[in-house]
Structure formats: C-alpha cells, structure tokens
C-alpha cells in the first residue's frame, strides 16, 4: 500500500483537535464546541473515530518523527521501533493534547522515547565535554567552498560525530525547520540554551567537514 503524501495538517484538523480534550476539564470557552457536546466527546475518545482523528493529526509528522529518532539513535532500524513506540505512547496520551502544535507535541514524545530507549539498550556514550569547547578560539577558518562541496557521506560522519545534545538541535532546526521556540519546547530547554547549542553544533560541523576533507586526501 503506497504511503499517503506527507502534507501539512489542513486547517480543518485544528478544529478536530478539540476532540482529544479530556472530558471534565475546564475548557477555554469555545463558541462552536460547547459543554453540551462533552458527552459526545467522551464517547468519541474511546471510539475508533478518535483513532482516525489521531492519525489525521499526527501521521503527517511521521517523517519528522523518524528523522529525529534516526539522528538521536544513529540507527535506522532502531529508529523505526522507537517511532512506532512513540506513536503508541502518543495515542495513549492523546487526552493530554489540547490544541497547540501537534508536531512539537509528537516530537517531544519521540525524543523522550528515544532517550529512554538509549538508556535502556545502550551503554552510555563516552562522555563528551560538550559544554566547553577544547579550543574555542582556535577554530580554523573554514573554506566555504569546501562546505558547499561536502558529500552526503561526509555530512553524515560529521553529524554522527556531534554529541547527541547538539545533534538533535541541528536536526530539529535545519532538517525539520522548527523555530527556536518549538525546539525549546520539544527539548525542554531554555531558548538561550537552544541558541548556544545550535551555534556550537554548527561550528563543530564546519570544523568536522574541514578535517574530513583533508583526512580524505581531497584538497
């Protein structure tokens, strides 16, 4: 069966999101969704229609979910397992989703699931002193042409060489285009930390591409 297209959720989906709100919660007064439908909502939550809503809302972000998991885990097969587990968790916690950005909400769960998986299945990576650069002021001047010519293998090696805490920020910002604010939400970090990690991550990536290109014998 061919995978459906990866589209951004249409505006209609936004109104459907209310159906995830839990019964009994004080909802923000809504003109089109009054308390009279609370009973219907409750039934809705347990029924299969809810699952359709859930899929319509969150499946469009499968690619983003997969990319985040893949780069956190550095492994495609593990990423698939983690993404599946994350979607099941998301379905279980769909009641706590009350509007807002479904992508950020889903990615928060994917990220947590991935980190849980890492701590359970792999011995911790050798600690990388990611907060202090070894030679922060000795960064080599990087050849811009060299970055432009970097091939996918070099990029992958450079990315995988980053500490996970840095790599995930690059993935969310540069591969998936989340705003700083959304990244802060997903990673549970202050925006200032997102910014500094992103800057350091990019600087490291450039340095790594530089080194790789010389190590590979190319000019």
């Amino acid at each position: 069966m061919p995978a459906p297209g990866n589209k951004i959720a249409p505006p209609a989906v936004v109104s459907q999101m209310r159906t995830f709100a839990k019964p009994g919660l004080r909802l923000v007064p809504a003109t089109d969704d009054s308390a009279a439908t609370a009973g219907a909502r409750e039934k809705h939550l347990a029924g299969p229609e809810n699952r359709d809503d859930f899929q319509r809302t969150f499946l469009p972000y499968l690619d983003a979910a997969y990319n985040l998991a893949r780069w956190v885990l550095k492994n495609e097969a593990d990423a698939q397992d983690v993404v599946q587990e994350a979607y099941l968790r998301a379905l279980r916690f769909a009641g706590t989703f009350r509007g807002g950005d479904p992508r950020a909400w889903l990615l928060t769960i994917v990220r947590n699931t991935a980190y849980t998986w890492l701590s359970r299945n792999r011995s911790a990576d050798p600690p990388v002193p990611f907060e202090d650069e070894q030679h922060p002021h000795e960064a080599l001047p990087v050849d811009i042409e060299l970055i432009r010519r970097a091939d996918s293998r070099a990029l992958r090696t450079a990315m995988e060489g980053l500490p996970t805490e840095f790599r995930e920020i690059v993935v969310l910002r540069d591969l998936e285009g989340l705003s700083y604010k959304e990244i802060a939400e997903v990673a549970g970090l202050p925006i200032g930390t997102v910014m500094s990690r992103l800057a350091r991550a990019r600087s490291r990536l450039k340095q790594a591409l530089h080194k790789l290109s010389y190590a590979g014998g190319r000019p």
Partner: protein
Amino acid sequence: MTCEDARQLLDAHVDRELDVVTDLEVTRHLSECARCAREVESLRALKKALGEGERAPEGLRQRIVNALGSSGAADREPVTRATWLPRYNAIAIPAALAAVLALVLMPRLFRVDQGEFLLREVVAAHVRSTQADHLTDVASSDRHTVKPWFEGKIDFSPPVSDFQGKTFKLVGGRVDYLDDRPVAALVYQHGPHVINVFVWPSDRSERGPSLVSRSGYNIDHFSYAGMNYWIVSDVGVDEMQKLAALLRS
C-alpha cells in the same frame, strides 16, 4: 553593535529568528565586517548542504497504522471465539468487560495524565518567565505593592508574603495562565535562583506538599487555605521545603 555582540546573533540572523530592529543592526554590521559576513556565508552554505530531512522508510507508516489500530482494549475484536457460546455473546461479553474495565481505569489514567500535564505546564511557565525579561509585571519587594496590583486582573486575591528577614526575597508578581485559568505568579529570589510560586483558588481539600522534579527543576505542590500552590525553581530540595513551610505558616 559591536562585533562581539553581532557574532552571538549570526545563527539567529541566518535562521530569521531575530526581531526586526536587531536584525537590521546585524545586517548593518555585516556590511562593515568581512569576518562576520564570511561566517554568515558559511552558515548558509552549511544549512544548504544539510538539506532537508529524509522521508521515513516505506512500510513504517503502514506498520504504525496497524499498531495503532490494534492497541485499544475497548474496541478490539476478540481473538478467539469460545465454541460453547453463541457467536454474538463471544463478542458482547468481552466487549462489555472491556468497557467496564475502561470505565474503571480511565478516570484514574486521566487523573495521572492531568497531573503530569499540569506539571509540564508549570515548568514551562517557569522557564518562559526566566526568558526574555518577562519575570514580573509588577516589580516590588513590598507585599503592599504586589498584592493590590493583582486586583482587577484576576478574580481572586492571592496571599502575598514578603518574608521580611528571611533568605527568600519577594521580587514581584505577574499574571500567568495555567490549568485553563489566569493565575497569580509570585516571584521570589533565593541567592541567584528565581522561584515562581503559582497560586490559584483550590476546590480541593488541603493537601500536603508533594515534591517532584522535571527537566532539572524542583516542583512542589500543595493546597492550603483554599488555594493551590505550585512552587517551581532550580533551588535545592531543602530550600523548596523551607519556602513551602513559610507559605503555609
């Protein structure tokens, strides 16, 4: 704008995350500073080289759709059919049992979820308040200034103490939004640490403190004298407990 200042903002400039005024200042600096201009060019090259994320592999989508479809207990088809029962009973009885189980279990699950969700909301509100200069809307260490400020902004009057002579110093207050309602946020300082105390009327009976931590923050929650209190901070557990005791005294 100095070169040092501008250099801190180059990534945000490339990401179009700066406000208009700051962005203009950075742009002006770039026209004067070859080194920063070069840095911006290399950042753009890097972003372009990284490209976009990959598509998820074929099959993962279907795998997830299948998994989602079979994860529910309430509407799952029974897997085996008992031969000694009429066919419809084989479906109806487990379905009824599942429904009863769901009715019993779901409110519990929801309660847990709701607590966890509120916890995350409280932490997020704390984090937001420490960013971008939005810690207080009324800045004062005097409770006689802070308390009246809330009047007309929220539909209750929060108890405000300035703990004269204690290590906790009242810094000010602001209105925040939690648990689907406007709440009072009282801001205290303990050494270099900022402490947010969120207060709103409680419809529950009194509840003792329950201390947890999330994302590196300690959060204490209790109900006292008809009010919900949520304390969030990066101070240690001991200080949290001291402040909770002071608020309850």
